[in-house]
């Protein structure tokens, strides 16, 4: 007998020089899905886990039940702030990516194309809620008005860095702004978010937790550990999957396997799950509001798959042109979040091309000014060394004897 079984190997939408093909994604029309009750059970969630919550149609018009559900949350004023957040995020990424190229810092990660998700989600959270972000969720910080000088200081690892140079750039931490200290190890924080949410329920403090993970890292054990424990204890946690189609050079198929969406993985654990157009700022606001209300109301965990596209390189150490076509981002069927919100606001007469250009210049100027000030405290090309003995602080609450001896050996 001859062996007839054949292995399958996932292939990306494009390779260098090959025309991008996103036909593996079925993109439903905007406005087709109803807004379910926040108490939605897992049995009723299938259309939401398989479909796609979208508000903005191809022309930039807000359509359907989720647009209505937004109500005042979708006011022109709020949307203009959202657009400004995204422009700010883009300006920060742009300036810091350049700074990395100039050797002023060792490393940087951009979130280009994914700005709507964090910028929008953060605007729907309340004080005391806690995100457990990945390295690519800095848009959450922008959406919670985190001081720019701290954000930039962290990337420069100088005396303005709230983390004293201990962490790789972009691995921010701020309890006050609901941003848990980011690990460089993928997946681990997903289950920590479940623990935080369990504590919130046990301590009855009304807060919720939000776990964040990339599509690639859903392959990790801790992704499944988090879904499992969330389904067992039902704490107020939102488990976010940012599906940006890539994990460095590996296409999403390596974590996605078969035809199921990431949201559908949640259903298997009995967790109501929804899939959302992550490049549609209005859909982000609406779905976030719905999910946060649900979690805070005590109706248990929820999983959100955000469909988006990693338009930039994985990191400053990556060159995507060696593994995917340069035309992929342009071919991405859900477009660009900034362009889509801009079009919507212009269509509503709440924005104009001139105001847009002006806003872009303003945020860039703001970032540049703060950046300059932060750079005056030192960069990798103009280093102002911090005391080496600081390495040994905060390893423990109190410095034990062996670290004291090592501090002496350091000579400081």
């Amino acid at each position, binding site marked *: 007998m001859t062996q007839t079984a054949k292995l399958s190997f996932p292939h990306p939408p494009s390779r260098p020089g090959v025309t991008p093909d996103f036909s593996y994604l079925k993109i439903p029309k905007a406005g087709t899905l109803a807004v379910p009750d926040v108490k939605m059970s897992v049995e009723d969630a299938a259309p939401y886990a398989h479909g796609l919550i979208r508000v903005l149609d191809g022309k930039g018009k807000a359509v359907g039940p989720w647009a209505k559900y937004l109500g005042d949350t979708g006011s022109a004023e709020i949307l203009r702030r959202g657009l400004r957040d995204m422009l700010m995020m883009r300006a920060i990424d742009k300036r810091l990516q350049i700074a990395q190229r100039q050797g002023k810092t060792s490393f940087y990660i951009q979130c280009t194309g994914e700005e709507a998700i964090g910028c929008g989600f953060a605007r729907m959270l309340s004080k005391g809620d806690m995100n457990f972000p990945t390295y690519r969720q800095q848009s959450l910080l922008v959406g919670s008005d985190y001081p720019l000088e701290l954000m930039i200081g962290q990337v420069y690892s100088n005396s303005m860095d709230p983390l004293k140079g201990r962490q790789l750039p972009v691995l921010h931490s701020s309890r006050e702004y609901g941003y848990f200290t980011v690990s460089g190890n993928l997946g681990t924080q997903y289950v920590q978010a479940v*623990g935080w949410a369990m*504590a919130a329920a046990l*301590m009855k403090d009304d807060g919720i937790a939000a776990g964040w993970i990339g599509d690639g890292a859903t392959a990790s054990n*801790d992704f499944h*550990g988090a879904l499992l424990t969330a389904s067992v204890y039902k704490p107020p946690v939102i488990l976010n999957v940012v599906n940006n189609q890539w994990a460095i050079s590996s296409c999403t198929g390596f974590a996605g396997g078969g035809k199921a969406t990431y949201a559908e993985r949640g259903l298997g654990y009995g967790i109501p799950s929804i899939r959302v157009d992550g490049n549609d700022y209005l859909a982000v606001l609406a779905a976030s509001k719905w999910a946060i209300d649900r979690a805070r109301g005590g109706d248990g965990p929820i999983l959100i798959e955000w469909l988006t596209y990693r338009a930039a390189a994985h990191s400053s150490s990556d060159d995507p042109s060696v593994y995917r076509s340069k035309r992929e981002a342009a071919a991405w069927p859900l477009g660009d979040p900034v362009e889509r919100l801009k079009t919507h606001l212009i269509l509503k007469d709440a924005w104009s091309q001139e105001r847009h250009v002006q806003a872009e210049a303003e945020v860039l100027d703001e970032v540049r000014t703060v950046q300059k000030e932060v750079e005056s405290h030192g960069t990798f090309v103009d280093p102002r060394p911090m005391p080496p003995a600081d390495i040994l602080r905060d390893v423990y609450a109190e410095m034990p004897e062996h670290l004291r001896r090592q501090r002496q050996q350091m000579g400081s």
Partner: protein
Amino acid sequence: MPSMTMIEAIRSAMDIMLERDNRTVIYGEDVGYFGGVFRCTAGLQEKYGQERVFDTPINESAIVGMAIGMAAHGMRPCVEMQFADYMFPAFDQISQEAARIRHRSNGDFTCPIVIRMPTGGGIFGGQTHSQSPEALFTHVAGLKVVQPSNPYDAKGLLISAMEDTDPVIFLEPKRLYNGPFGGDHSGQAIGWKQHPKGKAPAGHYRVPLGKANISRPGNDVTVLAYGTMVHVAEAAVKACGIDAEIIDLRTLLPLDLETIVTSVKKTGRCVVLHEATRTSGFGAELIAEVQEACFYHLEAPIVRVTGWDAPYPHAQEWDYFPGPERVTKALQQTLEA
């Protein structure tokens, strides 16, 4: 003072902390309703309710990961790994997360958790119920690592661990749960009742972390041991009549180097014991520190007695276990050198 087994002492510490500090939660596999496979949490769920003491899915990484999230939010989780052998799926959460949260967030977040786990052999558990992974933990900056050798210390150390603001690995030598064990596996099992350290106050007290205990004062050779090997050392010394000073380390990290160095400078000789495999074991660390601090006081090479560098066997457990004969031989060798 009431007499207690090691199990009762550990349970009493958790009972007291559940009572005193409402931030305390206790959980793990079979820990809740049933009270743990070694019974360390028996009765606690009944007393404090399932929100304080509960069962978990069989996912060690999630058990520790949840504890990290809870602790960061202000709770005090004390969790159980059913056996130290099963901590490996959680090692990522322990070594990369729990141990570093304070440092990497510049103190913005902290991780006051205790991870209890039964360790060591002597119960015919084979290679997956007998391991001693302490050196894997002592190699991680940011952790504290504790291993008691008797009920009095176990209770006082566990209370200190649960009150500590840093993550503590609490290794419980399972062979000592029900009685002291000097390595004579053919003899009658003895309980903790007759042992002086088998008595402990019923209420709250602390045994400080980072402080060793001289369990037998002596002049001729210093023996460094922890957990079960403290009792093996005592049995060996009793049998051969050598005037050894036995130091029960109690906390491996941070190490009480001062007590060790004072003793070795006095005796000029040192024997290091552990049940774990030899190569890169915690004994290597002890010897390195002792030679650096006491080189000019040493009159003989420092000797290690450890488990062999092989997986812990099932049927040949007593050929593997570093029993009193091997310890006696090492003591004599050191004295004759």
